[in-house]
């Protein structure tokens, strides 16, 4: 018993020393970021500047002992628009400047971004609210019980995040180091106190059962003495820890006991907006509503579940934004089988596509009467193709041929009279946000994300985001097919040997190295056919002149006989 008491005392001492050392060297951890202390010239908390010094994508570099509690990112909403020399920075470049690099406590990111993320990504969120959707882990259909359980878990996770903790299999754990140590100390003291009490009781029982045996009585007395001494030491150590904790660490272990006695609560720590709040935008997929928007300086902006109106596909969806404000958003109309009229006539896409490899004219999408179409007809209309080409061209102009998550404002600037423009833009931004929040932290527009935007043009609905970033473009397309299958349409695959593609198809490419190992693959939007052997595509993440380029959008001519081309996905009505 004496050994245990000794060990407990040592653990407390070392723990306090370590904690003190950590806190002494991380003065900014607990003081960041305060919006009211933002510098008027740089727009940043000076303390943040200490951490955010590097340029380029490296952003700020937290010390390794901070990496678990800090997150560095580019803040596109940086209020200042001037560089260090007082020269105004163009808006599009803001997100790439060192001054726009900021650090924030990562605890919220962990809580909301990682630990609750399986519930927050739009596609996964839809799994929760919609019975009959596949479980992301087991691929089995979720029952109502499972959905209820997941929703309950989500609520717990949210509450945990809001109290600055992270949600684990054994419950909510505080993430800040002093909170964690405080918790351990309190639990340890409780356990030690109970053990001491049991020890005394055990000694007393031994005396009562000694039957007057002097040796046994002596041993039991010694045992009780040791236990009482241990209890005194524990109380004494609690006093030391409390003095150290309140003086150096800023917490009191007495406070929780007071709270229990007084039945009072400390005010919950304010959950500051995390990275997710900065560039995600509230959206309406039409069928499901989900949230994500949050003004950066808005307090209490934990994610709040939306309240979709399941009874209406075309009606409004009432949902809560991440700051708890309920809003009504109209869902876009369901797609129709007839061509959707645009708000205004769209000029035919005869101009040069940026980068201008030439003038691309989409071929006719509908064959003459009586002409059979190998692979079946497409639901895509000429107008949709024209809209898609126009959107691509304007997006390339607005974004400088590249789309990155750090500056998606260029997407908003695309303002052309085409159908479903808002849904398309929202789909692109949502996809990129979700990708950046994925474990791979992909910050560039991907080929599949761009395809989904075109699908949104067809359907008027968002296609959700990737549940995973592992897999090929084709395999990642599968969830998309499932999504649209729910709308009585499907993306049917047509082998390239059967027929040439039709405009509006999605050309699928495989990828393999010199040894024949498969890679990620590629998918592109067919915007026109030249002849039976050649067609043109619009695409993302694959550039002109046969180059890969992160986040770029481009046009390309494709040879149908190319061995990397395998076929086309065509939007068709389900048989």
């Amino acid at each position, binding site marked *: 018993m004496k050994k245990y008491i000794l060990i407990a005392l040592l653990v407390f001492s070392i723990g306090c020393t370590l904690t003190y050392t950590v806190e002494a060297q991380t003065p900014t951890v607990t003081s960041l970021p305060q919006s009211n202390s933002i510098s008027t010239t740089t727009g940043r908390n000076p303390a943040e500047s200490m951490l955010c010094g590097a340029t380029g994508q490296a952003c700020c570099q937290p010390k*390794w002992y901070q990496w678990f509690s800090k997150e560095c990112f580019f803040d596109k909403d940086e209020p200042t628009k001037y560089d260090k020399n007082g020269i105004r920075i163009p808006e599009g470049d803001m997100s790439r400047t060192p001054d726009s690099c900021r650090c924030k406590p990562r605890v919220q990111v962990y809580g909301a971004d990682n630990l609750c993320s399986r519930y927050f990504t739009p596609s996964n969120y839809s799994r929760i609210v919609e019975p009959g959707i596949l479980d992301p882990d087991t691929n089995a259909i979720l029952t109502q019980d499972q959905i209820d359980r997941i929703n309950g878990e989500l609520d717990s996770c949210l509450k945990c995040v809001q109290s600055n903790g992270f949600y684990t299999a054994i419950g909510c754990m505080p993430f800040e180091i002093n909170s964690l140590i405080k918790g351990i100390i309190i639990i340890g003291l409780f356990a030690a106190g109970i053990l001491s009490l049991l020890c005394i009781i055990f000694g007393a029982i031994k005396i009562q059962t000694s039957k007057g045996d002097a040796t046994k009585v002596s041993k039991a007395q010694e045992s009780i003495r040791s236990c009482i001494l241990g209890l005194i030491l524990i109380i004494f150590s609690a006093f030391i820890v409390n003095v150290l904790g309140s003086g150096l660490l800023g917490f009191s272990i007495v406070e929780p006991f007071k709270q229990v006695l007084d039945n009072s609560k400390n005010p919950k720590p304010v959950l500051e907006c995390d990275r997710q709040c900065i560039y995600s935008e509230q959206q309406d997929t039409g069928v499901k509503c989900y949230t994500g928007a949050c003004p950066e300086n808005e307090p209490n902006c934990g994610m709040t579940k939306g309240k979709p109106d399941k009874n209406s596909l075309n009606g409004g969806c009432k949902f809560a934004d991440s700051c708890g404000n309920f809003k009504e958003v109209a869902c876009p109309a369901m797609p129709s089988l007839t061509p959707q009229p645009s708000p205004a006539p769209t000029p035919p896409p005869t101009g040069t596509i940026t980068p201008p490899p030439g003038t691309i004219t989409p071929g006719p999408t509908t064959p003459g009467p009586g002409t059979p179409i190998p692979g079946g007809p497409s639901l895509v209309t000429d107008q949709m193709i024209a809209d898609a080409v126009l959107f691509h061209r304007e997006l390339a102009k607005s974004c400088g041929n590249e789309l990155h998550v750090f500056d998606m404002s260029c997407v908003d600037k695309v303002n052309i009279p085409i159908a479903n423009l808002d849904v398309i833009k929202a789909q692109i931004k949502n996809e990129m946000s979700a990708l950046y929040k994925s474990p791979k932290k992909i910050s560039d527009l991907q080929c599949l994300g761009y395809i989904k935007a075109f699908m949104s043009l067809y359907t008027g609905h968002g296609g959700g985001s990737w549940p995973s970033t592992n897999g090929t473009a084709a395999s990642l397309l599968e969830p998309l097919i499932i999504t649209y299958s729910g709308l009585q349409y499907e993306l049917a695959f047509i082998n390239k040997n059967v027929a040439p593609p039709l405009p509006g198809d999605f050309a699928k490419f495989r990828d393999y190295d010199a040894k024949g190992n498969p890679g990620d693959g590629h998918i592109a939007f067919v915007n026109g056919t030249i002849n039976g052997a050649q067609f043109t595509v619009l695409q993302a993440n694959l550039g002109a002149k046969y180059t890969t380029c*992160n986040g770029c959008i481009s046009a390309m001519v494709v040879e149908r006989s190319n061995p990397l081309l395998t076929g086309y996905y065509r939007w068709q009505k389900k048989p």
Partner: protein
Amino acid sequence: MNTKLKIGIILGSVVLVIIGGVVAYVMLKPDQPVKQVNPINNSPAMSQESLDRMKEFDRINSPTTYLANLLPADEATFKMTYTIDPVRKALVFTVEPKALSLQQVQEDVQKWLLGIGLSEAQIDSLIIEYGSPIN
């Protein structure tokens, strides 16, 4: 409790605390190299190796596709772009001369096309239209 034991406990505690403090100080040195958490450009996409293969395939089998995908080209004496002729269902390459002499431009175009790996026979199969030289 034995006095020696008490002294041992106190001394042991002090030593351990000092060791802990030293270890913590060394480990938590502010200028410690940073663990980089920034895999920003880890994009799943077609590999450059596959694209090179595609490029080579087009160069050999379809000079029009190959050339179109290398455009626009902006050389010293000409600019080259392409359009799609819906009637002929073919790619038409347009050369906008920058030099005064059309003959010189044609020679430069020929050299450039040879330089990107096309054979003379392939170049002859291309539909190239020349604009008027700049005056």
